[in-house]
């Protein structure tokens, strides 16, 4: 059953890729959306009808396909595993993926590479589902690389645009650096535990159980950090985040699906999946939290000053991913996953909305040349408002609950030493404020105020994609195939958080209870060495009072008063950010921003100068001009020259006179006979 969830998009990809050119747009749309619809329906069916009825701690479904590699005691199966964690992932991956497929049929309408686009998109769905359903780290890596490949293909989809190709290469190469860490991490896992399967297989125990029983030593720290290197690449964290903003060169549905909702959260998935390893290493947890918090803040500041609507959203994505890692780092993996899900809703919505704006504005992406669009695109405006309010933390919308959860967990964490939890909370709260500000800036500049388009320069046609079927001129609302997914996502962005309402606010937090069996509990700092970390200590009342409060994350330990206080504070921050944004940019939408921010802290330039140029120079002048041309070519050409010299020397013996051969034979015979006669 599970395998059909993944195989349906693969079949779709094969059909679109092989026959798409002949099928035409209608049939390609049907095949592409249909195959994803099949896997969506199956995913929901398996989740609700098969997984949920199981008892809470036995929620594990496996679907072995075939044994892929078996060498010695190394075994990697092509097998799928559905547990609460991957269950949540397949639901929103297929659901959001389906909506984006539908949207893309409208957005890509008339593009000459229509079928190619959908073949890639379907292939991406297959790879992403393989990633989250994989039952071992190697198959996960297949999906991991597969989504990377699809990301590469789709970023560089506009093959005639140089910056698209460059961005694709940048994404691919940056991810390679992360993958290196991932691979070393997996090797280390295999040598340490002797298996790479998450769950028990035959007589060998599963990785998750082995990790649980393993002492907290340096190896665990090394494994966790190496896996995290992989996660920083895929999930665009400092220092490897640079590819994600550039990846916006791809078509907007791709940005929504791959670079906001699904693929970039693969790093968070990996961290949560290997949470049993991460919680063993306070160092690794601290690094994860630190990187997450810094990325969140750093990207948010850049987001404040970007003028490309998709770039704003891209930096916002990087920043929100930082939030997710911060959650993982403070031991609140579930809060991280919760944010992954709500983020998938509202960020996909925002990206699709921006795509709708770009589409309606005839491929204009610069928000300085927009303004007043709410008159022309009411549906896009209203739906994007939902996403905007959700990401800004407007009360009772999805982003509010997930972000608030992360803030509270960071504040109250015991997995980090000393006051670090509070420090990270401070950073995250500041980021929340800035998130509200820059999102408001983007919305105000796009939808409110004076109309700044159509003055002087016509909206130019950057992509050859959107042909002649819509003329230049006034912005227009997008077709139904585009706004219906927007509406659905807007509803999800509003209500998506309600499954995880924390107890302090009167909810039951079903989300957390559902995920708990699949996720490790982070022990209090200094307690990581305990082999059995689930020793419940219900007696330890009072937040952080007892050292034995290893179960600090369960509801009854919440200092409800503080939590509600912090919630109110984050509401104030969110609303204040929105208000601030309105105050500043409604009056003066073109207010210049600091050059440092607008130029993204010159990080790309620094990377160019510090890493890329030296490598390029070394490759060119040492490896190519010296090693390759002088040494390797020298050896090869020298050998050839030697052979031809020897040959032309020996050639002189071949006179062509039969008599001289006879004379040589005679001399040889005399020599041989002489040798035997006189020796």
């Amino acid at each position, binding site marked *: 059953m599970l395998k059909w969830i993944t195989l349906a998009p693969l079949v779709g990809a094969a059909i679109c890729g092989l026959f798409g050119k002949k099928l035409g747009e209608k049939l390609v749309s049907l095949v592409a959306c249909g195959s994803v619809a099949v896997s969506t329906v199956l995913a929901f069916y398996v989740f609700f009808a098969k997984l949920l009825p199981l008892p809470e701690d036995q929620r594990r479904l496996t679907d072995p396909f075939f044994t892929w590699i078996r060498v010695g005691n190394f075994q990697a199966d092509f097998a799928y595993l559905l547990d609460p964690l991957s269950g949540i992932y397949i639901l929103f991956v297929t659901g959001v993926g389906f909506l984006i497929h539908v949207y893309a049929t409208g957005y890509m309408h008339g593009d000459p590479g229509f079928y190619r686009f959908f073949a890639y998109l379907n292939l991406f769905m297959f790879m992403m589902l393989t990633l989250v359903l994989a039952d071992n780290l190697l198959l996960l890596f297949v999906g991991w690389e597969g989504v990377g490949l699809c990301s590469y293909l789709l970023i560089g989809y506009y093959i005639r645009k140089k910056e698209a190709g460059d961005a694709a290469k940048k994404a691919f190469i940056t991810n390679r650096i992360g993958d290196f860490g991932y691979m070393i991490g997996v090797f280390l896992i295999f040598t340490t535990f002797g298996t790479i399967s998450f769950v028990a297989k035959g007589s060998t125990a599963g990785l998750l159980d082995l990790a649980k029983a393993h002492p907290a030593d340096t190896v665990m720290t090394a494994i966790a950090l190496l896996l995290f290197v992989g996660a920083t690449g895929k999930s665009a964290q400092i220092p490897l985040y640079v590819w994600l903003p550039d990846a916006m060169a791809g078509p907007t549905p791709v940005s929504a699906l791959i670079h906001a909702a699904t693929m970039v959260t693969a790093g968070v998935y990996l961290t949560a999946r290997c949470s049993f390893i991460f919680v063993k290493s306070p160092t690794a947890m601290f690094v994860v939290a630190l990187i997450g918090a810094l990325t969140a803040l750093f990207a948010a500041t850049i987001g404040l000053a970007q003028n490309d609507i998709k770039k704003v959203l891209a930096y916002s994505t990087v920043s929100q991913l930082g939030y997710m890692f911060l959650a993982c780092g403070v031991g609140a993996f579930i809060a991280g996953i919760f944010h992954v899900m709500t983020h998938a809703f509202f960020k996909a919505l925002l990206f699709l909305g921006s795509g709708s704006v770009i589409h309606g504005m005839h491929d204009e992406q610069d928000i300085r040349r927009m303004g007043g669009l709410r008159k022309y695109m009411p549906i896009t405006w209203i739906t994007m408002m939902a996403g905007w309010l959700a990401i800004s933390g407007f009360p009772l919308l999805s982003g509010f609950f997930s972000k608030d959860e992360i803030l509270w967990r960071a504040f109250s964490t015991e997995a980090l030493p000393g006051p670090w939890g509070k420090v990270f909370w401070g950073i995250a709260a500041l980021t929340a404020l800035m998130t509200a500000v820059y999102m408001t800036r983007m919305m105000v500049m796009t939808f409110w105020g004076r109309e700044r388009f159509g003055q002087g320069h016509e909206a130019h046609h950057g992509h050859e994609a959107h042909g002649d079927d819509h003329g230049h001129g006034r912005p227009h609302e997008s077709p139904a195939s585009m706004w219906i997914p927007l509406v659905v996502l807007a509803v999800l962005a509003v209500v998506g958080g309600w499954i995880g309402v924390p107890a302090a606010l009167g909810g039951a937090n079903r989300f957390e209870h559902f995920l708990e069996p699949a996720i490790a509990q982070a022990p209090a700092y200094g307690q990581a060495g305990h082999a059995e970390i689930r020793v419940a200590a219900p007696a330890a009342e009072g937040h952080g009072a007892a050292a034995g409060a290893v179960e600090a994350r369960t509801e009854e330990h919440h200092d409800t008063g503080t939590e509600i206080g912090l919630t109110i504070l984050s509401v104030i921050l969110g609303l204040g950010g929105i208000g601030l944004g309105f105050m500043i940019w409604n009056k003066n939408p073109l207010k210049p921003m600091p050059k440092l921010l607008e130029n993204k802290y010159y990080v790309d330039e620094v990377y160019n100068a510090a890493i890329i140029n030296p490598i390029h120079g070394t490759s060119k002048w040492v490896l190519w001009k010296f090693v390759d041309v002088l040494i390797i070519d020298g050896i090869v050409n020298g050998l050839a020259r030697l052979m031809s010299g020897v040959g032309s020397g020996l050639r002189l013996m071949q006179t*062509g*006179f*039969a*008599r001289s051969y*006879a004379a040589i034979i005679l001399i040889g015979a005399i020599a041989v006979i002489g040798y035997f006669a006189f020796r």
Partner: protein
Amino acid sequence: MVPIQYYLALSALLFTVGVIGVIIQRNIISLFMCIELMLNAVNLSLITFSRYLGSNTGQLFVFIVMAVAAAEAAVGLAIIITLFRNRETLNVDDADILKL
């Protein structure tokens, strides 16, 4: 009875004449005759050893050599005639188109 050394010396002398002839002659018919001369020098030494050792094996070899020489003469003369028809020369140095 003539000592064996005499026969062998004659045989060696004939063979040497043949070899030198092959090396220095340019006329293809002379070359051919020199080759025959070498074959017969070998035949002579085979007969000599046959008599000396009281075995008939050497004489059998001689018959084989003579048969081969006859066949070779037929083929060789045919080649010479063809060469002459094509080139109007008997000088081997003129038949060198296979040379580089």
